[in-house]
């Protein structure tokens, strides 16, 4: 049983472990109780402020750096973002192939890093969704759907539709994170910088300046915005603006 209790964060165990183990020794837990304990441990990790103590100062919002699991997801997302940029570099510099019928650039060399980078983005997507309040159902669903679209896209990068679903899911998540106060100004600044860079590229193309790589303007806008959304999500996970799971669930109390 102590293995299940070990799933709880250390701060929770310091406060409740002793009495919790006494409770479990008095009432032998059945399988449903074991599931309930695991759910409780997940909740304690997602809502660390809920067991911070009962002193009046603990009721005030505190500067909060987020649990390590969320920050780790931020690091993974950040690394994935850099890997994705490297992937784009590999793709646009791939070998030129002449197969007798046509001449094209082989982007297959970028497939492994593309797959890994999108997988890392999905980790960030789902971690960011977990930090949203439970009332943000639409954004959580969008993040979930975007994750599955990302899996498909990672396997088949030529399926631009699923790539677009991933992009849209990330955008919905970012809007909801900003709306519920999960974003700092720096996150918004990263996104604005990405959009501004995309606008500059398109404007340059319109006035006849050759883009730095041979892709269409629309692709450039989408890719730059995806990159900026990606880095903003990583930043929000690494440096959350407010306590991560400030409970704002507004479901009414069900009459007993």
């Amino acid at each position: 049983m102590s293995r299940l209790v070990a799933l709880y964060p250390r701060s929770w165990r310091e406060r409740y472990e002793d009495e919790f183990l006494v409770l479990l020794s008095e009432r032998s837990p059945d399988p449903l109780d074991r599931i309930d304990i695991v759910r409780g441990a997940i909740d304690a990790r997602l809502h660390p402020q809920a067991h911070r103590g009962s002193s009046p100062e603990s009721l005030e919002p505190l500067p909060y750096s987020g649990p390590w699991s969320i920050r780790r997801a931020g690091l993974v997302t950040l690394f994935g973002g850099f890997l994705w940029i490297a992937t784009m570099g590999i793709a646009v510099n791939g070998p030129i192939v002449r197969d007798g019928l046509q001449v094209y650039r082989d982007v297959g060399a970028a497939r492994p890093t593309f797959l890994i980078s999108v997988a890392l983005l999905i980790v960030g997507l789902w971690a960011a969704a977990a930090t949203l309040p439970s009332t943000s159902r639409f954004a959580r669903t969008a993040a979930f759907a975007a994750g599955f679209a990302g899996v498909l896209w990672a396997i088949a990068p030529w399926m631009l539709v699923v790539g677009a679903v991933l992009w849209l899911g990330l955008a919905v998540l970012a809007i909801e994170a900003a709306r519920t106060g999960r974003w700092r100004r720096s996150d918004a600044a990263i996104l604005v910088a990405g959009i501004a860079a995309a606008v500059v590229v398109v404007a340059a193309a319109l006035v006849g300046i050759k883009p730095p790589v041979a892709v269409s303007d629309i692709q450039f806008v989408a890719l730059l915005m995806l990159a900026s959304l990606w880095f903003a999500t990583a930043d929000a996970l690494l440096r959350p603006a407010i306590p991560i799971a400030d409970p704002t669930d507004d479901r009414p109390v069900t009459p007993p």
Partner: protein
Amino acid sequence: MTPGLSEFGRFAEPSLYILLSLSDGPKHGYAIMSDVEESSGVPLGPGTLYGALARLEQRGLIEALPPVERRRPYRLTGLGVTTLKAQLDGLAGFARTGLERLREVAP
């Protein structure tokens, strides 16, 4: 202003049961579980019990007493009593309205 329990999310209903259980005196975890199950028929899992206890304690609705043989009893605070009363008043109004409406539609 009386704080509600709705911000507790899925722990709102168990929290109400716990407040009700503590209304006749301090109890430790196992006694709360037994009392809630006996009075409401709703089994309270250990993870849910301690998720709700942590929230109630953090919000100052209950307070922990010194442990007795490693069992730590909890009791209602003044704020907890006020909150429980407000919740029960709300439920009483809800039940009253429902019963009146049923009387109006009864054949």
